[in-house]
């Protein structure tokens, strides 16, 4: 991933948390583009319209949650309808270890971070991927 071509998508129902994520990313990568979605339906539309290379995905959202978002992308990859694979970081308040393990094992998921988000964790992860 190139630092000056970073495109983030934040899928999160809580507006305050979206703002916090956004401020943090903008400070870290001033030239990045950031798209936002407040549920999985908006998220999936943004994914196809904006081609983000990193997605921060909340799991628990009303109506359509993060699980649905992952289901759609995984079906698309397995049927070879989708070609490009962004890095998905699941940000979740789930504490159950088994559940976390299961999310981590999902094909589309690159990393799982606990919520509230520790910014240094996210920073370390991103810096690993970015040239």
């Amino acid at each position, binding site marked *: 991933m190139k630092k000056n071509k970073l495109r983030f998508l934040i899928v999160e129902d809580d507006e305050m948390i979206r703002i916090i994520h956004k401020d943090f990313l903008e400070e870290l990568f001033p030239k990045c583009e950031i798209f936002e979605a407040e549920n999985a339906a908006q998220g999936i539309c943004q994914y196809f319209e904006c081609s983000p290379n990193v997605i921060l995905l909340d799991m628990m959202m009303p109506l359509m949650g993060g699980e649905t978002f992952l289901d759609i992308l995984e079906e698309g990859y397995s049927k070879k*309808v989708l070609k490009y694979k962004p890095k998905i970081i699941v940000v979740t308040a789930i504490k159950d270890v088994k559940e976390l393990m299961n999310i981590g094992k999902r094909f589309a998921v690159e990393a799982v971070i606990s919520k509230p988000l520790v910014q240094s964790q996210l920073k370390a992860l991103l810096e690993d991927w970015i040239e």
Partner: protein
Amino acid sequence: MNHSKDILIIEDESITRTMYVSFFQKIAPEFNLYEACNALEGLCLCFEKRPQLILLDMIMPEYSGEFILDVMEEGISKNILSFIPKIIVVSSIDNANELMELTKRLAVVSVMPKPLPFETLEELLKLHL
């Protein structure tokens, strides 16, 4: 306006899908046909191919046709989507109220009964293709 020459068929039953495919090959041979056997695959194909027309089955296992309408509606109403396909819903639902509700959904241009009356569909397609 969407000028793509693509039609997407979303239907879980393979025999029914094959029937639809041969129908479209006959009446709209210049169109590319794409097939999806469930709502998730259908949604991915819809975004990737941006078809002019979608033939959408309502009752499918796991994620239904309604799920696709929900996602499309959210994308259209929030101005995220840069295209709007014409969706023909195919449904064996015979409750009049439920059918009426379906016709009111964004992007839905028509609701057809199942089994599909091909002559009526052919007339309808003259308006939309």
